[in-house]
């Protein structure tokens, strides 16, 4: 971590605590844009964390951005900060100036022909709230990054398991607002960065769900004692704590690998991200199961805050590739290593 990270993380944590409250998150789900929260994010420059100084950003360490995203997940942040960081990262890599306002990214390999962009994408997070939708487009085998004005796209509104906007987006013959070649990049790299972002946010969300569970188990009295005194409950929570610790470790390993190459998704980063997203599948299944079991019917109500974290973890495990997809991708890499390189490749991460 760099020297600046504490300042950035402290700022983020303070803004999220003040302005990403239970009420704000619920209101956002009902369609009310949290203007004060987004304004505070823009005023502090958090949305430009991953944008190089040359492209108008703050040029912070990539690792700092991941720390902010974990805090965002821990606060159930209902605005597209992660999506804006991802979009800014793509535009910055192409040397483009990053405009202000919320941004998002539509996955996939889209078409570029005669300067016009066409394609469709499912479940584009926060598309309706974004000023620009960033896409990867291909023409004659060359990859470009392009930014489309939202107004030029057709949106079909939908929502994630967490009630966040997941809109289907279509664009046909749209002239992009920004466009530049993206050298040394593959479409899969966007999926990898997106997957790591979701793992990091989920590590934060599950940490909060764990904290809520520990607190509730210590307060809720049944049979004359707090339910946290019952061994059956204790052991579930111990397992949950293990899942959360492991997910955080996997997220950190991914963030370190990406930061080490200054954002280039090389073979090592690919492996770390594949391992982390695989881990998320497990943590986001087992962790929320414990959180809800501990909270009983109370935590099954909309009124209780727990769902803001468990539902996000459930949504994020599906985005940018499920654990099945990433485990197979990692399995392919492992088969490529073969029996002789299996162990040396596992130790290589600490021996560089």
């Amino acid at each position, binding site marked *: 971590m760099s020297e600046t990270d504490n300042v950035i993380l402290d700022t983020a944590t303070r803004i999220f605590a003040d302005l990403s409250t239970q009420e704000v998150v619920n209101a956002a789900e009902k369609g009310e844009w949290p203007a004060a929260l987004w304004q505070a994010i823009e005023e502090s420059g958090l949305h430009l964390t991953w944008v190089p100084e040359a492209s108008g950003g703050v040029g912070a360490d990539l690792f700092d951005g991941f720390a902010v995203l974990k805090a965002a997940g821990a606060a159930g942040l209902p605005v597209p900060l992660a999506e804006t960081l991802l979009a800014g990262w793509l535009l910055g890599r192409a040397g483009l100036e990053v405009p202000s306002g919320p941004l998002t990214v539509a996955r996939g390999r889209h078409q570029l022909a005669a300067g016009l962009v066409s394609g469709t994408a499912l479940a584009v997070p926060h598309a309706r709230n974004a000023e620009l939708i960033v896409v990867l487009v291909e023409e004659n085998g060359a990859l470009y990054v392009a930014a489309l004005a939202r107004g030029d796209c057709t949106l079909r509104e939908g929502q994630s398991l967490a009630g966040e906007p997941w809109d289907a987006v279509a664009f046909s013959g749209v002239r992009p607002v920004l466009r530049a070649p993206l050298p040394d990049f593959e479409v899969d790299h966007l999926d990898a960065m997106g997957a790591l972002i979701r793992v990091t946010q989920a590590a934060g969300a599950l940490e909060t769900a764990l904290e809520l569970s520990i607190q509730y188990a210590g307060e809720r009295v049944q049979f004359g004692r707090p339910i946290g005194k019952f061994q059956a409950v204790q052991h579930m929570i111990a397992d949950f704590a293990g899942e959360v610790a492991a997910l955080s470790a996997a997220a950190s390993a991914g963030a370190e690998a990406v930061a080490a190459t200054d954002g280039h998704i090389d073979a090592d980063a690919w492996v770390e991200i594949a*391992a982390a997203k695989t881990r998320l599948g497990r943590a986001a299944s087992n962790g929320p199961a414990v959180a809800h079991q501990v909270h009983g019917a109370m935590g099954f109500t909309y009124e209780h805050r727990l769902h803001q974290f468990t539902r996000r973890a459930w949504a994020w495990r599906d985005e940018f590739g499920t654990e099945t997809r990433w485990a197979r991708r990692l*399995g392919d890499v492992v088969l490529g290593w073969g*029996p002789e390189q299996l162990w040396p490749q596992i130790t290589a991460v600490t021996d560089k």
Partner: protein
Amino acid sequence: MSTSRFRFPRVTMPPAARQLREEVRAFLAEERASGGYTPMADCWASGFSADFSRKLGQRGWLGMTWPKEYGGHERSFLERYVVTEEMLAAGAPVMAHWIADRQSGTQMLRHAGEEVKAAALPRMARGETFCAIGMSEPNTGSDLASVSTRAERVEGGWKINGRKIWSTGAHGEGCDYMIALVRTAPADAKERHKGLSQLIVNLKAAGVTVRGIEDIGGQVHFNETLFEDVFVPDSHLLGEEGKGWSLVVGELALERSGPERFLSSFIALREAMHVLSENPDDRTREVLGHLVAQIKTLRRMSLGIAGLLQEGRSPETEAALVKDMATRFERELIEQLRVVLPDEVLLDSSGVLPRLVREAILRVPSSTLRGGTNEVLKGMIVRQLGLR
């Protein structure tokens, strides 16, 4: 990322450790090629070879972190970690010295008198003498404070009566010492942790009987050790009389933090790769991805503990958390591997891979028992979380 309850610092191997890894790999490759060992699953608890241990001693790979004046090599915890993980990943027969190197030697270094340290530690570091654990008893398992082996004061020392059980390796050639947790004062129901002491028992002394116990696979690697009026000299007391509980807690932390908690069956995966690489289907890819993802994360966490030890901390709860997850993974590894292996492997009882798979399956029930059951470990975790 400050809200995390448990901290596992990132560890990067220093150049000396990386160099060491190359040396260890070259040694293991040569030994395996020349028939110096045959790889086995759970090698640290069932692969006894005094010869192999002496070879490691000659290379300076035992007692690595101990001071030179006691035969050690003053190397870092990370360098020791490299040697242990390489041995495990290769399935090398490291059982003979494992307990002495992992815990008993360090425990003596911390708490024994000069005379004992000078006599025992250099021989342990050379792989010439080994140790057994002396904690469990027939009526004492998870509830360790309930030990009833008694030590009575006699002139110049103690007289011990009782029995210890599951003392891995106690019957082995060259296993001369056991650090036994005994009662030196009657049990007080209100303060159960008082009146316990750790004594170093010479297993070759008069009155000691070691009897091997077969495990479910027919292997004899653990024992019952009977003490009948066994004399232990004053100098063999660790720390202070009656203060043995805090000592044994420290010993358990040494026991719980290592890579043997998730690498016991790794050799089976490594060998299985030869078979799995032929026409792999999606299920095989998925299993390999899941297993390697978990190994990578567990190794990072386990190394984080080595990093905390290097910082001079005593990460008992972190060690409990990693051991709980890691030992459950050991079962998962062999169970998941099983479902993607072909009949020719599962239904065969000859050949290296079928043997390794069978060994791993038959050994795995002990993973979540030895060194503290997972139920005890979970108790430690929730205490840290404030629920106990």
